[in-house]
């Protein structure tokens, strides 16, 4: 009833909110781990000390299952379920690494990278960059196709900016504004390739209902939403 906030810890991201519940035991890559009922498989893997790469999941927000990076293999189950949206069951056997998983994860990440400014990949330190490192990827096989590199940067808010070129539409910002802050200022507008983060009625952040709490900036894994104070001379697109 309250572990989803009280169970959060600095320095570790369980991927999905901690739960209150009866203990459930399962194994992750052969290691036994016990977590409260209702926890996700992703949380169990973190507890077991085995990490699964992720993009759209973070433990302050409910699981979403959109990025398709956190796939795992579960003994007795077909396919490659997303560990964030899969709830633990007693006796489950989870595998976080395999050749097939690596291929799938790399494939998904390359698609993300195909719409991410190439020059911003080296020297980055966002969560996206760390995930790239974890998966072992530096670039993608695709040439230049349709992309969002020329979408205008929203600098209306004096404290943070939004650069859609780096947005991977993971919806963490939208969910943070709903679940953590409760203001519901952001949505994803459009579908498929046209999907984009929109504030208010697709207005600049400053003119929307945004109260500038910074929850979206905190949640963004790719520095698409980022503090202006980290750019001393002002923000320049590469």
């Amino acid at each position, binding site marked *: *009833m*309250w572990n989803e*906030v*009280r169970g*959060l*810890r*600095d*320095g570790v991201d369980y991927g999905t909110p901690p739960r209150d519940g009866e203990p459930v035991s399962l194994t992750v890559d052969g290691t036994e781990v016990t977590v409260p009922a209702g926890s996700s498989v992703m949380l169990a893997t973190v507890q077991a000390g085995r990490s699964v790469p992720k993009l759209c999941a973070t433990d*302050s927000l409910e699981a979403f299952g959109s990025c398709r990076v956190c796939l795992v293999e579960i003994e007795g189950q077909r396919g490659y379920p997303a560990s964030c949206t899969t709830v633990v069951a007693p006796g489950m056997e989870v595998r976080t690494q395999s050749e097939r998983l690596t291929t799938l994860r790399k494939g998904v990440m390359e698609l993300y990278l195909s719409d991410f*400014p190439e*020059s*911003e990949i080296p*020297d*980055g*330190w966002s969560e996206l960059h760390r995930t790239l490192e974890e998966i072992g990827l530096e670039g993608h096989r695709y040439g230049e196709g349709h992309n969002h590199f020329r979408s205008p940067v929203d600098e209306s808010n*004096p*404290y*943070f900016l939004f650069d859609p070129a780096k947005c991977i539409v993971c919806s963490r910002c939208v969910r943070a504004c709903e*679940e*953590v*802050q*409760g*203001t*519901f200022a952001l949505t994803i507008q459009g579908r498929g390739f046209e999907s984009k983060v929109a504030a208010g009625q697709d207005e600049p952040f*400053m003119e929307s209902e945004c*109260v*500038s*709490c*910074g*929850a979206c900036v*905190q949640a963004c894994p790719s*520095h698409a939403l*980022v*503090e202006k*104070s*980290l*750019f*001393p*001379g002002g923000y*320049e*697109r*590469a």
Partner: protein
Amino acid sequence: MPNPRKPEKETITICAYCGVGCGFKAETIGNEIVRMTPWKDGKSNHGHSCIKGRFSYDYYRHPDRVKTPMIRASIDDPWQEVSWEEAFAHAASEIKRIQAKYGRASVGGVSSSRCTNEEIFLTMKFVRAVLGNNNIDNCARICHSPTQFGLSATVGAGAASQHFDSILQADVIMVVGANPTEGHPVFGSMMKRRIRQGAKLIVIDPRRTETVDSPHCRADVHLALRPGTNVAILNSLAHVIVRENLHAPEFIKSRCEWQEFEHWAELVGSDEYSPENIGAIAGVDPEDIRRAARIYASGPRSTVYYGLGVTEHSQGSTGVMCLGNLALSCGMYGREGVGVNPLRGQGNVQGGSCLGSWPHVLTGYRFVTDDATRSSFEAEWGVELDPEPGLRLPNMFDAALTGHFKGMYIMGEDPVQSDPNQNHIIAALRKMECVIVHDIFLNETSKYAHVLLPGSSSLEKDGTFTNAERRISRVRKVVEPLAGYQDWEVTVKLMNALGYDVQYAHAGEVLDELARLSPAYSGASFELLDRVGSAQWPVDTKAPEGTEVLHMEQFPRANGLGTFMLTGFVPTRERISEQYPLLLTTGRILSQYNVGTQTRRTANSQWHPEDVLEMSRGDMQVRGLHTGDRVTVASRFGATQLKVVESNRVNPGIVYTTFHHAESKANAVTSDLSDWATNCPEYKVTAVEVAKVKPDEKSRARTDTAHPAHREHEAEALVAVEDA
């Protein structure tokens, strides 16, 4: 440079602003703060933040920062920059002179709720041990002093009974005279989370605030009562509970004084407090009163959160007692998800209350008249202490006007902007001979000061804060103090200059002394806080890591039982009249913090560049007003000019404004009435009239910058200044 700079170091500290006291990581590159990120392990915020703590920290290096001490013989002279030694010597000699000439009780001090526990404690020690009197007060006087009085009377402790997380277990949330969405945003978000999960919400507030109605979060009952009718409405809720037998007799019999309950039930059960009668007085539908009472009483877990809309009234303390009475009558104490919780406004105002920064109590709310308590202090401090209660802050100003009060040490406060009846305060300050202001910026009060000691922001010092849920947390120094000293070091030097020789190697030693003298803090130390992060008082041998929920077994009163206070409704003497037919009430907005000393020096002014007057359409039409007009708001006490804006948040007959900008002079208008028990000013009820500014009327000097330093305009004499 395409990628953002990566911070090198992070220091965990507490936000400088509101009473939620969010934990933050101050991230630095070299000696520069590059961002503040919310700390996931912060037990009051769990990784969330609001615009103020997250982004509005740059005021600390604003060019307006005072970096050098200044003195002047008269307030009409220009300031003269001096060294620290000269400033201390001058202040000390002035204080000595004044006390010799006018008596020991002619000086006093007020401590700041934005300063650490250690600093408040030392200011209190300065006044008691060095100045030798009890004329020490705290800004909680003007906000939550009725909380201390009212809750101490009913349940024995004037502080929140629960921790913030407790709201996640509440089934019914009653918010009275508070607007958490604006004033305590991170807590407001937690509250909304619970309401989206299905908890019911009752709001008692004259305005249809953001708390009443926001996305996916609407109040089940909103009692939009007339300002000044709190006690009437709360008694009426009690009437319904008692008459419909919704109270909890087993709880009352085992945990409370049953006889007092019977007296109280007789009072509130009388016809005087029926919903029909009170609904008419308060402008509320009687059926809504009944619904609210039934929802609250049936719980099963009902919690109350309240704010200045309860306390800043002439029956403020009575209003708080009503809340205590209600919760006791329904058994809503001593477990999770219940209780009565004041939403303390400032980062450390709870600390100020606990540490005896009051004229009538020492630490832990123990009376100065109590010999045993006083002796323990005398033993530790090595001096005899004054056994009589001292002057409260408003009374210090009253006494200045009669020539009895001549010197004052004001730390981190701006009474001219934040206290009511501004003209009265200015007149009082003018009659004083030595006003020492210790602050980070020049402010409205410093215009009347003789000594200016540069202060340090919370980013520049070590110490502890106590937030609204009694949580003691470490404030850690992130950058070196711009003026060279942390605030507590300045107070120590001032004590030394007056001949009281005390030294502390670091702020932790002050906490240790404070812990020896304060039972609820006895287990607190830097070492404990470094180890566990934070601890809610009482922290003692029984609860070495703090206490989350109070009153689980006993109430801290002499007999361990809660009691019921007789809370008769006494209407305020402030009445509307033909000349002043509207009621003005005041409040806070999210982006600005109190008098805006800090937030007006950040980009937050883009959201709220000026205070505006909210008025209902009908009232505007009758006066020929349109949104954007400049209007004069006048009361019996004074007048000011504001921009008017049409709003459907206020009922006809009510107008509303905020108090964040010095230019708005909202407190030139507010009355001199105050709470019967504590003198907490009645900010929330002032009879006013609003009229368009005539074209030939001199418009108040208003600059459009957000940097009000060194502005010279005085309060215009639209009302004769009080003279003794």
